[in-house]
């Protein structure tokens, strides 16, 4: 049976101005991947950080963000770093189509819980090791 491994030194960013929701996402992801998680409360600060320090492997963001919203962020990130996985979440059903059209890799409809976040990790962060070696990322 193949062993699951996590992308080595995986870098994940969470962007949401609602600190309660953001911290919940961070707790779940930090536990899942055993890595620190980047956090931002608006799209502009996140974008500046990505340009200066490099793009993460995965970005999870609210559609509704100040200065640069989630939809605009998808376009900019996919243009600058096509390999970065972008996941947007929202409480408004009408945003789902917009998110799809912008080329987001996933959409999470609020309210959501740990299952959805574990599903993201399983889909976008876990690699199948063909050698079956349960190696520990550095």
């Amino acid at each position, binding site marked *: 049976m193949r*062993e*699951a*491994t*996590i992308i080595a030194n995986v870098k994940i960013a969470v962007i949401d101005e*609602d600190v*309660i*929701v953001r*911290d*919940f996402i961070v*707790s*779940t992801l*930090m*536990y*899942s*991947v*055993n*890595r*620190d998680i980047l956090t931002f409360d608006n799209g502009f600060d996140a974008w500046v950080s990505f340009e200066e320090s490099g793009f993460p492997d995965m970005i999870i963001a609210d559609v509704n963000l100040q200065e640069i919203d989630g939809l605009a962020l998808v376009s900019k990130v996919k243009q600058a770093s096509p390999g970065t996985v972008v996941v947007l*979440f*929202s*409480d*408004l*059903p009408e945003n*789902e189509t917009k*998110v*799809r059209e912008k080329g*987001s*890799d*996933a*959409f*999470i*409809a*609020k*309210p*959501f*819980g*740990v*299952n*959805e976040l*574990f*599903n*993201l*990790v*399983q*889909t976008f*962060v*876990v690699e199948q090791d063909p050698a079956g070696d*349960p190696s*520990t*990322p550095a």
Partner: protein
Amino acid sequence: MLRLGSRPENMREMELDDIFISRLQLLIIMTKSYLNKYPLGSYRERSILENAELVKVDAVGLAEDIAFFGSDEDFHNGLNFEPVFYQRVKLLAVMAEAFAKGHSLEEHKQEALEKNLNTICETITFSKTISDMQFLKVA
């Protein structure tokens, strides 16, 4: 595009009760992983400590609300749990803090932890198994 979460007709903003239940489910998964001897790491330990503290504070607050408002019909505890449930959650959080700090739990304490965990899972009808989350075996 992968779609996750609520059905369109159920979509709404997340409330404090949603976060409490979600954090409690996360604490349950953390505890099951510990009981299954899955590895910890520094960030996992930090995450457990932060999550346990928040769950504990919320549980104490919700229990106090029940004690204060009692049967007041104007007070609606949306979660509708008995006070003893919050005591069980508080105990779970304290035990999670203990193992996250590296304190080894003796066999009888592990049994008590598992029993408490099962009772909480039955109350909130949470039956998530961790066997399909292989990535938790890697720290």
